[in-house]
């Protein structure tokens, strides 16, 4: 004897009125002749209704404090960047010192005035600049790693398709 296949996983979508016309009619027709599915449908409807009307509420929150804390966290997240920027702040100073040194050398050609100290300083500062740039590169790599971590959670966000018009 032919046993009808119960449209198990379509029952909820049927309840929610989400099935395409053809599927909706097919499920409706099945349910009208299947006592088991009729019972299941009624029970599911009742459970969903019970749940919807008895959603447990979380402990109350002071929303002002919540937002203030959120602000603080957001600022804190920017902190590492500021930390590095603080480190980088002497960079323009070093650069301008080096340029000034170079100008001095050009302005006072050999014989008249030699500023060996300045030149050495410039060299030292160039090294400092180079090591900072190196640090900067390493930092941007770290920052990218962080970004990857974030992206892991939200990597498919741009694939979301619209489902209903608001």
């Amino acid at each position: 004897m032919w046993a009808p296949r119960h449209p198990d996983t379509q029952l909820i979508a049927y309840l929610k009125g989400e099935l395409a016309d053809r599927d909706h009619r097919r499920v409706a027709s099945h349910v009208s002749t299947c006592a088991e599915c009729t019972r299941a449908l009624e029970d599911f409807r009742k459970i969903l209704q019970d749940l919807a009307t008895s959603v447990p509420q979380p402990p109350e929150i002071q929303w002002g404090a919540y937002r203030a804390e959120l602000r603080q966290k957001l600022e804190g997240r920017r902190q590492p960047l500021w930390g590095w920027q603080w480190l980088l702040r002497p960079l323009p100073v070093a650069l301008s010192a080096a340029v000034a040194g170079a100008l001095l050398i050009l302005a006072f050609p050999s014989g008249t005035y030699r500023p060996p100290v300045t030149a050495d300083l410039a060299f030292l500062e160039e090294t400092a600049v180079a090591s900072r740039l190196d640090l900067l590169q390493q930092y941007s790599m770290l920052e990218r790693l962080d970004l990857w971590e974030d992206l892991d959670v939200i990597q498919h966000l741009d694939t979301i398709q619209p489902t209903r018009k608001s």
Partner: protein
Amino acid sequence: MELSDEVLCQRVANRDEAAFDLLVERYQERAYRLAWSILRDAEEARDLSQEAFIRLYQAAESFGQRARFSTWFYRILVNLCLDHRRKHRRWRGVLVVDRSEDESETSLIERQPAPFQDPVEDLGKEQTMKVLWTAVDQLSPQQRAALLLQVQEELPTAEIANVLKCSEATVRVHLHRALSTLRKLMGK
């Protein structure tokens, strides 16, 4: 005229702090409540809902207008909570073992007639709801998340699928298994 969530999110991408504050005010309660319903811990819910807002702030640029803002935001939030639970292995007992996303497993669900004798008569409404929600807490993370998005947020199946990063068919399976489990439990 009130600005839509989507417009506000675009402004957040341009670092409009006021737009961010407005989005937080609009979503703070829903975010906290949803996080709490998944985590059942007020501190963690507070922390992770705030984390979701921070991610929103950082990733606002990647929000495409193709999506509804709420779906996009819930996706960040729910996945943060599910990841958190996974990492902390704090899912207690599980009544239904939902090891696989495989939809063919549907057939494994026992289809025993379970007459839904209204337990209200025996237990009283409040007690019944307590039992029901305790059972919800015991569902597998995916089933539970799908059910919460259905019951609390009243999302259509397609949006639940987007939030949970799975197909609509999978969401239907999750919901069917969840409700079948609850039905059996309540029919006792």
